[in-house]
């Protein structure tokens, strides 16, 4: 319990900064929406833009003049931002004891490394929940003026759930990377590379649907907002894949970290 509290406190500043950024970005974004909302001219303008470009920025498809459509486009950026937060948090929460050389203090206390991981995991999940919460609150309150209907609310709930799942995928990836790779600088870098690779794959897939099978390798494609909006659900197969990745990442952390030499 002590460790959880300490981790929460030590990560508080970063959480506040991220929360502030997310809230600000969402507010600015939704102010922009004012220009699109129920505006047929804007729809016409967007239709005139080249399809490939639209696809690269994943704004091909949804109707930008509706609340769901507009939020759909932003969704991939939510995934990326919160994914980055989670992957960095996951890798640093494990490796920082080595980075700050506090491992010689912390891990010579009468606790097992397994217990240390559990406490850190709890703290990290709480952090992710809070950031998803802030994102949801900011999005909900800035969408309120545009008369959100039942359909939007359902879409919104699913999107936020997906956001949290994506965070868990990257949290487990980050933690497992830090568990496997001894050197803290490398583990941080590899964690971010993984996320960037996943993002690049998702962009490439959008532009070329012949390589659709690559979808499985990028969490950014698991819960596409357009699919959620159209179907009113998260796709089961991707929920299962996500669960597998998350469980594998956490299990890997629990199996590998307690058995490896600390980098001191």
């Amino acid at each position: 319990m002590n460790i959880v509290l300490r981790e929460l406190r030590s990560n508080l500043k970063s959480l506040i900064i991220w929360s502030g950024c997310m809230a600000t970005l969402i507010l600015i974004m939704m102010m922009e929406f004012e220009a699109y909302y129920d505006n047929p001219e804007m729809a016409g303008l967007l239709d005139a833009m080249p399809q490939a470009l639209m696809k690269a920025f994943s704004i091909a498809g949804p109707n930008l003049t509706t609340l769901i459509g507009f939020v759909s486009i932003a969704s991939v950026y939510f995934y990326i931002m919160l994914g980055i937060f989670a992957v960095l948090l996951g890798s640093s929460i494990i490796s920082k004891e080595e980075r700050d050389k506090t491992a010689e203090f912390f891990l010579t206390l009468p606790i097992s490394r397994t217990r240390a991981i559990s406490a850190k995991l709890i703290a990290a999940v709480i952090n992710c929940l809070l950031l998803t919460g802030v994102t949801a609150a900011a999005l909900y309150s800035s969408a309120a003026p545009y008369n959100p209907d039942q359909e939007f609310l359902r879409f919104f709930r699913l999107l936020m759930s997906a956001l949290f799942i994506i965070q868990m995928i990257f949290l487990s990836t980050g933690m497992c990377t830090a568990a496997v790779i001894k050197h803290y600088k490398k583990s941080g870098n590899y964690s971010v590379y993984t996320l960037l690779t996943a993002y690049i794959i998702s962009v490439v897939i959008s532009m070329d649907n012949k390589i659709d099978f690559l979808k499985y390798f990028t969490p950014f494609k698991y819960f596409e907002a357009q699919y959620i909006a159209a179907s009113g659900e998260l796709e089961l197969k991707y929920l299962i894949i996500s669960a597998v990745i998350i469980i594998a990442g956490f299990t890997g952390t629990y199996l590998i970290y307690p058995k490896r030499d600390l980098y001191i």
Partner: protein
Amino acid sequence: MHAIEFHKLTKYYGKARGIIEVDFNVEEGEIFGFIGPNGAGKSTAIRTILGLIFPTSGSADIFGRDCIKYGPEIRENIGYLPSEVFYYEKMKVIDLLKYSAGFYKKDCTKRLYELADIMELDLKRRIEDLSYGNKKKVGIVQGLLHQPKLIILDEPTSGLDPLMQQKFFDIISEENSKGSTVFFSSHILAEVQELCSRVAIIKEGKIIKLEDIKTLRQDNYKKIVVKGDNLDSSAYRIEGVSEMTGDTRTLNFFYRGDINKLSRIISSQKIEDILIQEPTLEEIFMHYYK
């Protein structure tokens, strides 16, 4: 029961040598010195028995239990002071100490304040604002606040001024007289000699000598430098003098034996200055263990 038993403990970092077949026991209740030059493997041995790193082969038991398998339980009774102390920079000293104390099953508050008092530690400051020496003091209090049965010290005196060193040695002696075993790693022979009953000497990862401190004292070499105008080196050709170098103005040599014999020779000559030093560990290695 032995406090620590090393069973052919070996650690390689990849291909790099850490320690090789370290095999000795530390008895309960003794102050055991572990000496060797930098890079000899002292910290490697300590980090292995603390479970920070894992042996390549061999094992070590602490109070009869395997140090890896029963790590958390064993560490309940270990106090560890690393050679360089690092704590969470943003924390206040008192919060850090209380945080640490919270992991032990007994109430450590009283001892915490006693030790902080002896070490004249300012509990309200933040870790990041502390000097190296003050961080070391935090380390001492943190390592000892739960009154551990086994105290492991890795080059504990660096960064402490002589007064604090003395206070620290007093605390260690006191803990020892109350029954704690002390495992004291250092590269300074003199401080080990002062406290310890037995020593192990480690060089390039291997234990080269395990000895009673009394025996070590009897073989005590002194490094001597005599300066004068017209020194006669042949006058110093007595038993126990070795490695004589220098000229008529300066003579360097090592001496082992009755110091009175040497002082008579020195007093028979006109000299300007004399320097009698403890040899460094490297010099001891060169002379004892050729």
